[in-house]
């Protein structure tokens, strides 16, 4: 129970999503001068919600065995999509350097938050492990 912790799993998935988003930022920024390039984007929040059984919690299929059908995805994959919007540039590239930088800064804070939460969680488990003694 302690090792298969829902909170830790959720945080792990958030970290995975944030790392993939950082990848997208690096890819987009390196292609800032590639004519016709369309940016890659990672919107994993919805997928994360599904992976945690968010919207269909009430309609969750009860499973008591691995062989039962489950309507909750067992694996979380941050979805990578391409943004085909036109953008403002004449060369067909739709990378906006400011938007990209802001997104990256937000993502960095998101990652740091998730790591802090994870550390708190681990600290708590350690506290339990030591029987409440410090």
């Amino acid at each position, binding site marked *: 129970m302690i090792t298969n912790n829902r909170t830790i799993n959720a945080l792990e998935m958030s970290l995975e999503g944030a790392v993939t988003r950082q990848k997208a930022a*690096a890819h987009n920024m390196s*292609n800032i001068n590639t004519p016709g390039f369309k940016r890659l984007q990672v919107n994993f929040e919805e997928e994360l919600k599904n992976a945690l059984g968010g919207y269909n919690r009430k309609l969750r299929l009860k499973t008591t065995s691995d062989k039962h059908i489950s309507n909750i995805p067992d694996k979380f994959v941050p*979805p990578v999509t391409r943004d085909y919007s036109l953008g403002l540039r004449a060369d067909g590239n739709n990378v906006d350097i400011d938007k990209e930088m802001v997104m990256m800064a937000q993502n960095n804070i998101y990652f740091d938050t998730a*790591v802090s939460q994870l550390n708190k969680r681990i600290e708590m488990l350690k506290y339990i492990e030591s029987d409440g003694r410090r």
Partner: protein
Amino acid sequence: MSLLTTMDMSASGLTSERLRMEIIAENIANIDTTRSGNSGPYRRKMVVFHEVLDKEVYRINNKGLFPGRGVKVTRIIEDDALPLVAYDPEHPDANEEGLVMKPNINLADEMVDLITASRSYSANVTVLNTTKAVAIKALTIGRG
């Protein structure tokens, strides 16, 4: 570790922008060169940027795994624009009418391209530093 491949992507951006800056430097250095390997004056060179995608990722599934691998310069091409013509009868390469074929380089264009390349280089450095910060933060997991 996937953050290291992220750094490689930023590095590919840095390499490409640096190469672009080198080509611009070459163009500016040759702004008065009237003789080149192919007959006629030096011709302006340009880099061709190309997005790099991992084909394996597309083959397996196009969802989940991140397909992007940064950028690369696939070719260095010469500008087809006609050479500039200047009247300078004293020039050793002047024709009978006293006209000299000069390279098709516009200094203002080159300077603007140079600034773009320089700014893009900085942007890639910023991304690289953020990735580094993320990786270092990830190392603190479980230490707290």
